[in-house]
């Protein structure tokens, strides 16, 4: 029988909830894709510090996961996404994006090739209807498997040590590769991927093994500074890594009400992803035209003078002409500087005479600051340990 009281619990709990709720001393919950997720467990600064100096656990379960399988899986993904899914080796992972017919971004995500004809696509937004539409004419089955998988991110410089201590030999696991391990009578997949721009792993298993996995890592990590982190700490880390989030740094095309808010991969600094030679993919012809005439927008990393986070600040050229907006910003505890991601008019992509208009609320009065902004390369923070194989023994 249908439970007609579903409205009383609008947010679902992830398989890790017994552990995350026990550790959530601030009771700071936020909705994410229909699940309750922790914003900050107890101390934002300590949580971010653990990402950069120790090891952290982050509950990834609400991330949308689609299983794409069938003899045409590679062909279908090639038509859906801008990269060549066929060239992704089995056991490999790549970051990719996909567009509508007009070449406007729908979402970005990571694509895992689990078998020659089986993939997993992880992303921020739900768009099964678009995927099913895209599957027409291909021998492929697409399933939303978000609820069937318990996923946990283990990130930070000591994450490899923690995994070793927990009994997983990940020494040969290279970035963007994954490996299978037996675990507690079931299976665990470990991929060397993450959203922190640091050494780190993502762990994938079935929901029934979620708590044993959490406990096993917590035990193994006790001496390596392992602690759970919430979304706020992760957001600072991802900004330092220069990663974008659909819905924050760009508005996904299906949500866009205003034509001029649509953004293409070329306008979001993602042109390097596009494989122009692999054949047709949705939006290709529109993107070719845009490449020819030049995109209107660009996406840049900024360093901003001062120590006030410039979130949402409007960008000006020469202090007076509006030329863009900051989509994500923070004071970077790692770099000790104020960093930001921004959409700017294409002709200002190289910067020069850019200013961020920052409003800081100070005891109920706004202090308005016009701060110089300098275009810098992303990622802002790019440690060599994230690439080293085998990972360093800290």
């Amino acid at each position, binding site marked *: 029988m249908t439970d007609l009281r579903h409205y009383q619990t609008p947010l679902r709990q992830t398989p890790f909830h017994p552990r995350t709720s026990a550790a959530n001393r601030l009771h700071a919950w936020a909705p994410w894709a229909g699940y309750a997720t922790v914003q900050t467990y107890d101390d934002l600064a300590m949580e971010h510090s653990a990402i950069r100096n120790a090891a952290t656990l982050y509950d990834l379960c609400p991330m949308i996961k689609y299983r794409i399988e069938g003899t045409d899986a590679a062909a279908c993904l090639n*038509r859906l996404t801008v990269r060549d899914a066929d060239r992704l080796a089995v056991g490999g992972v790549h970051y990719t994006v996909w567009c509508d017919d007009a070449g406007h971004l729908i979402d970005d995500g990571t694509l895992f090739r689990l078998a020659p004809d089986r993939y997993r696509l992880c992303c921020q937004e739900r768009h099964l209807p678009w995927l099913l539409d895209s599957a027409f004419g291909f021998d492929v089955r697409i399933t939303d498997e978000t609820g069937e998988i318990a996923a946990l991110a283990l990130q930070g410089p000591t994450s490899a040590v923690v995994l070793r201590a927990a009994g997983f030999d990940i020494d040969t696991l290279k970035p963007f590769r994954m490996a299978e391990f037996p675990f507690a009578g079931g299976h665990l997949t470990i991929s060397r991927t993450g959203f922190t721009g640091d050494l780190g792993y993502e762990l994938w298993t079935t929901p029934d093994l979620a708590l044993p996995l959490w406990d096993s890592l917590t035990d193994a990590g006790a001496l390596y500074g392992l602690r759970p982190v919430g979304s706020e700490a992760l957001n600072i880390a991802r900004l330092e890594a220069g990663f974008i989030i659909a819905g924050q740094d760009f508005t996904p095309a299906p949500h866009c009400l205003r034509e001029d808010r649509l953004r293409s991969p070329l306008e979001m600094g993602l042109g390097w992803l596009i494989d122009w030679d692999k054949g047709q993919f949705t939006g290709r012809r529109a993107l070719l035209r845009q490449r020819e005439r030049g995109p209107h927008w660009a996406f840049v990393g900024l360093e901003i003078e001062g120590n006030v986070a410039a979130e949402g600040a409007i960008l000006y050229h020469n202090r007076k002409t509006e030329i863009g907006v900051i989509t994500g910003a923070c004071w970077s505890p790692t770099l000790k500087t104020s960093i930001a991601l921004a959409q700017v008019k294409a002709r200002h992509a190289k910067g020069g005479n850019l200013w961020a208009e920052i409003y800081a609320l100070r005891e109920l009065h706004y202090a308005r600051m016009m701060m110089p902004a300098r275009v810098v390369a992303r990622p802002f923070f790019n440690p060599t340990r994230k690439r080293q194989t085998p990972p360093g023994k800290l």
Partner: protein
Amino acid sequence: MPSFDTIVIGAGPNGLAAAHRLASRGDRVLVLERGTTPGGGAAGAEFAPGFAAMPLAHLSYNLDARVARTMDLPRHGLRWANANLATTALSATGAHLRLEGPLGLTLTGEVSDRDRAAWAGLRARLLRFAGVLAPLRGMTPPRLAKGVGNPMGQLAKIALRARMMGADEFRELGRIFLTNVHDLLDDELETPLLKGALALDATLGIWLGPRSPNSVLPWLDRLAGATDGAQAALGLPMGGMATLGAAMARAAEAAGATIRCNAAVAQILTDGDTVQGLRLADGEELSAARIVSSLAPKTTLLSLVGARHLDAGQTTRARHLKTRGGAAKLHLALSAAPDFRGAALGDRLVIAGSEHAVERAFNPAKYGRTPQAPVMEIVIPTVHDPTLAPAGQHILSAIVQYAPPAPADPDAARTAMLDASLRVLEDHAPGIGALILKAEMLMPHDIETRWGLPGGNWHAGELSVEQMLFLRPLPGLSQYQGPIKGLWLASAGCHPGGGVSGTAGWNAALAMERAGK
């Protein structure tokens, strides 16, 4: 690999019109036809030995004057047996109503003076409105986008002509434009037989009933057609419509095009961005810089190009293109002339007792069932050309509405449709059943199989307001240019729609010329 400048897929009226124009201007043109004879809807298929093959179309109502003139169709065999066919609205009691001249200029039969006057006014108005809109048919539809070369001058001229009708008429056009046939007729007329004949005329070949919203617009489009220069006149070629198809084929060949029959295209070949050629069903590959498909856009996009070469959104829109056909085709081989209670057998005979009879025949079809009393348009071509059948014998060709386009049991539906049609015929021509040597009922799904029209729809995609002009066949594809460079759509599924007109093919060829090679 054999190579051509242009390969036209489909030797129907549109394919042949486009082929003629392109070949006349020096292109090396190959026309590929899946069937055994060119002509498309005007190509016949044998249904009874000794009797002429019957095409899908049995009357001409919108042959494009530009096409007929430039292709010089008379020189290639087109003669009108009757270029202004009268209509008899049959009564089961013999109290027929005869409509002579284009769209019933004069009425003979039991009609009140009031209705005669009202019809004269309504008829003039319908023809005037259709005439104002007629130039749209010969244009590339405008697009709702910037910098796509919209023919603003031509559009302004049409708007001006509409306005020049005067405020009252302009307002009236606006009032009835998107209304329905039933209400329009009901406002003015009371004679059931007249209203029935008009309601059937308005809804022939479209998936709308007289009471369906927007049913007036496709009727205006139909009335914009002409035969031999006379607006809304119905034409019957000597030898039947197959002669018209054959004349178009001969004209295209005379212009230099090569027509190859029994050549079904399996796949349009592209390198991703540009067409390279195509592959036939038997595996043979032909190369061409330009492919012109006169097949239904749904077929061209989803089967010949294929989803994997298109954007996903466009694929979805192509899948959702509506292509329901409600017109079945009945062919009877008769041992002698039937007697429709004294009606002139050379007329176009209509069985639609009232506008309600038409709507009632539509109701079950909407839910996948066949009507008890279908309505029909009958032509007996052997009255005009006795050589089409053995001496003294006849062919009766009828468009029977409405048939369900996708019945649960296709064979049972065909049998039920045939039985119901013969019952209706027997009511109007007692004894006709005993004359039948052979009967063939082609349901929409049969029409799809034989003529390749999805859903059996005459227009290769429903002709209704949401699929007209810049929305036909799909937004972004309305200007005949296909989604891949070098691919052109020249189908009845494009603007302005079907019929044996050649208009879409001609418009497409004009668009190709404007675009340059």
